[in-house]
């Protein structure tokens, strides 16, 4: 199967990007250097093409009921233009994917758009359609992943840059809110969201108009490499790596996103999660900071001073902001709370580390 390409594939190539496969898409991983791009987002602004993220739209009389029964959070709390982070779980409470649900701003009848991770759009579309049919709900489900490009403008300068090309319209968009507005003349859904820990916007614009929106911003282009180091410093989960139904099956409570679970609603996985919440978790998603030279990586074991197993890492890097090696992973909840001295086994060698509670940086 060939790789799916974002609409700006050739534009990125002409800007010197190198590419990587991610979730079945050929995406820019780096334009200049990860450290340069990372610093731009923390200090000024950076622009990402995240068109590999999926878009599924749900409308019709039972739209709210359908979305509510397949996500852990409560979408009936959303007013038009609100967004909400949620997990999508299976019947045993395992996270299949995490997502942001938008209640679209312009409709009296609730209409939703949610954003599954790269490569999950077809699976989620099928999941929604099958459950709709099984439950006899009246809702229309559309996979519009290849109708929307998604561009993320992130960093402390992002609000000003966004205001400059929207006649100031983005100034009225509050945190975690979304609205339709013109970006350089292109009708787009602008939401004050992101996955870097910085202020900024994500713009959903028509696939064919992505070039106009991309080129409207004069700032550092950024690839998925910097997106990864930025989210890692914040302790944000990466779908398929920090959780994965096959390789890393986790409940929202284990993954540290129990706050997305509203047990007062009825959804697939609810009963299992009610039990999990009552019984507590054996392992919990934590941060580790290495106290010796080395780089923590996905898959590395974490042990105590006696060499006994405490858990393993699912992500890690050299933090560009701190210049310190940091990792994320699942550690014994009782034996390794934040502050615990542990060892991360790097190529057979236990290296001193301490358990911390992310984020690693003050935000």
């Amino acid at each position, binding site marked *: 199967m060939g790789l799916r390409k974002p609409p700006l594939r050739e534009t990125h190539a002409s800007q010197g990007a190198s590419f990587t496969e991610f979730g079945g898409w050929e995406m820019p*991983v*780096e334009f200049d*250097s*990860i*450290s340069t791009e990372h610093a731009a987002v923390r200090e000024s602004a950076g622009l990402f093409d995240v068109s590999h993220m999926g878009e599924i739209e749900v409308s019709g009389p039972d739209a709210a009921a359908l979305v509510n029964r397949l996500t852990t959070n409560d979408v009936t709390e959303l007013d038009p233009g609100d967004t909400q982070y949620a997990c999508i779980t299976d019947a045993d409470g395992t996270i299949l994917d995490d997502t942001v649900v938008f209640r679209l701003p312009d409709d009296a009848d609730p209409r939703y758009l949610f954003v599954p991770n790269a490569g999950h759009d077809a699976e989620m579309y099928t999941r929604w359609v099958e459950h709709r049919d099984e439950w006899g709900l009246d809702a229309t489900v559309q996979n519009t992943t290849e109708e929307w490009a998604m561009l993320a403008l992130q960093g402390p300068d992002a609000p000003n840059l966004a205001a400059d090309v929207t006649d100031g319209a983005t100034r009225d968009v509050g945190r975690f809110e979304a609205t339709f507005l013109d970006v350089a003349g292109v009708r787009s859904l602008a939401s004050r969201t992101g996955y870097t820990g910085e202020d900024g916007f994500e713009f959903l614009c028509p696939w064919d108009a992505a070039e106009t929106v991309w080129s409207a911003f004069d700032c550092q282009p950024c690839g998925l*490499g910097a997106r*990864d*180091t930025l989210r890692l410093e914040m302790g944000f989960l990466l779908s398929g790596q920090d959780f994965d139904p096959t390789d890393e099956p986790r409940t929202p409570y284990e993954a540290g996103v129990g706050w997305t679970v509203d047990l007062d609603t009825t959804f697939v996985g609810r009963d299992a999660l009610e039990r999990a919440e009552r019984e507590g978790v054996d392992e919990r998603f934590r941060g580790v900071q290495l106290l010796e*030279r*080395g*780089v923590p*990586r996905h898959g590395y074991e974490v042990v105590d001073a006696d060499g006994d197993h405490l858990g393993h890492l699912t992500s890690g*890097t*050299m933090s*560009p902001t701190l210049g310190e*090696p940091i990792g994320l992973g699942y550690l014994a909840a009782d034996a390794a709370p934040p502050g615990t001295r542990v060892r991360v086994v790097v*190529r057979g060698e236990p290296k001193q580390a301490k358990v911390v509670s992310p984020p690693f940086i003050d935000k």
Partner: protein
Amino acid sequence: MSFDIPSDRRYLESHEWTTTDETVRIGITDFAQDELGDVVFVELPDAGSEVTAEEEFGVVESIKAVSDLLSPVSGTVTAVNEDLFDAPELLNQDPYGDGWMLEVDPSDESEFDDLLTAEEYRDNIE
């Protein structure tokens, strides 16, 4: 993109270089540092240890990748560039100069003949 490949040294296909002067220095190529991106960690053997041609002698890590280092020649390590431990970015900035890794006393100088010339290495990466 054009990479710097000095003609005064020899190369391995796995992107390490060695000088062939009296003092034999080894390191990684401009192409290698560009592929790796921001180098953040280097692990090298201690002076006095032995290295073997085309076998692993250390590890280099960038933000996005981990890569084994293979030695172009066999011999005894006589010096280690310890500056790289605190400033691994020297590998990005000056891979053939300040980014050198080891000095080696070669045990078999005929091994140099097995290595790629600059021209052969360029053909390999282009």
